[in-house]
């Protein structure tokens, strides 16, 4: 199975992502530079974290309009799974591939710590490695992770089961204190309508090695590799 990671000037989590993909998929991911419009056929496309284009204008705004993203959009329309993590999530919302927007953290501070997430559904290629309702621990590291969408959009996401992950405390409770950035309804990650595109702020690729404090992120990549095999 082949995977591709999109690399923008300012991306900085692409190598962490490559380690995670290599581990679960057993193949070397292709690194695709933002100016490339030729994207080989792959089974999964990942838009990684970082600060593409220095977060100029708005986080992810410049990357969303780069040449390679036109191709990514086309592939997504054809059903190729696309995963956006952190800056990748911001880029996918700016590109109109996911609803809503990521705004400045409500506390105005960069938040870098381990958080707990509730897996809201196991019914997707991205979350099939988890059980619905399971609590996992993964790190976040972002300045603009405050998910915003209007009430109608949030209701629609919830009604259709398109909320993938929600911030919770260690016991699984969706408390205000467990929400690190002010995201509406504690949303940490969402799917598109066909559940073939996932965007999330936390970094599962940084929770795959016990030496880094936990391996709860493995479920996402192992599950993906199994689902796409």
């Amino acid at each position: 199975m082949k995977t591709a990671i999109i690399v923008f000037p300012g991306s900085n989590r692409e190598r962490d992502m490559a380690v995670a993909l290599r581990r679960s998929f057993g193949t070397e991911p292709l690194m695709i530079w933002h100016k490339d419009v030729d994207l080989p056929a792959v089974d999964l496309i990942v838009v990684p974290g970082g600060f593409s284009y220095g977060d100029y204008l708005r986080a992810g705004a410049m990357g969303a309009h780069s040449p390679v993203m036109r191709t990514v959009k086309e592939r997504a329309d054809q059903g190729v799974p696309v995963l956006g993590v952190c800056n990748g999530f911001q880029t996918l919302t700016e590109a109109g591939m996911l609803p809503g927007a990521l705004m400045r953290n409500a506390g105005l501070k960069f938040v870098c710590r381990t958080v707990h997430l509730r897996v809201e559904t196991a019914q997707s290629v991205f979350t099939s490695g988890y059980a619905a309702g399971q609590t996992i621990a993964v790190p976040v590291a972002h300045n603009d992770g405050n998910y915003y969408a209007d009430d109608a959009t949030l209701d629609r996401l919830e009604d259709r089961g398109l909320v993938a992950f929600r911030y919770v405390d260690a016991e699984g409770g969706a408390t205000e204190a467990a929400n690190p950035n002010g995201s509406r309804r504690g949303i940490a990650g969402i799917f598109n309508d066909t559940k073939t595109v996932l965007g999330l702020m936390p970094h599962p690729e940084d929770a795959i090695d016990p030496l880094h404090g936990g391996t709860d992120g493995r479920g996402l990549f192992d599950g993906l590799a199994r689902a796409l095999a």
Partner: protein
Amino acid sequence: MKAIVHVTLKPGVLDPQGKAIGHALGTLGFQGLGEVRQGKVIEIDLTETDAAKAEKAVTAMCEKLLANTVIENYAIRIEA
């Protein structure tokens, strides 16, 4: 001509930066402050000489890139 674009957060969208600015102004002793909202200004020099055409072009720029219309409003002023 020149286009001056004001991008502001939509009413109802939480603006933590505006809130922090309002709080700082209050600590400095400024009184009678209501809500403070922060936005951005983008100035664009244009070769276009027709104001209506210029406004149309800049509207397209706002819709496509300059503003994220999920959370932001924009206002355009065209100057000769």
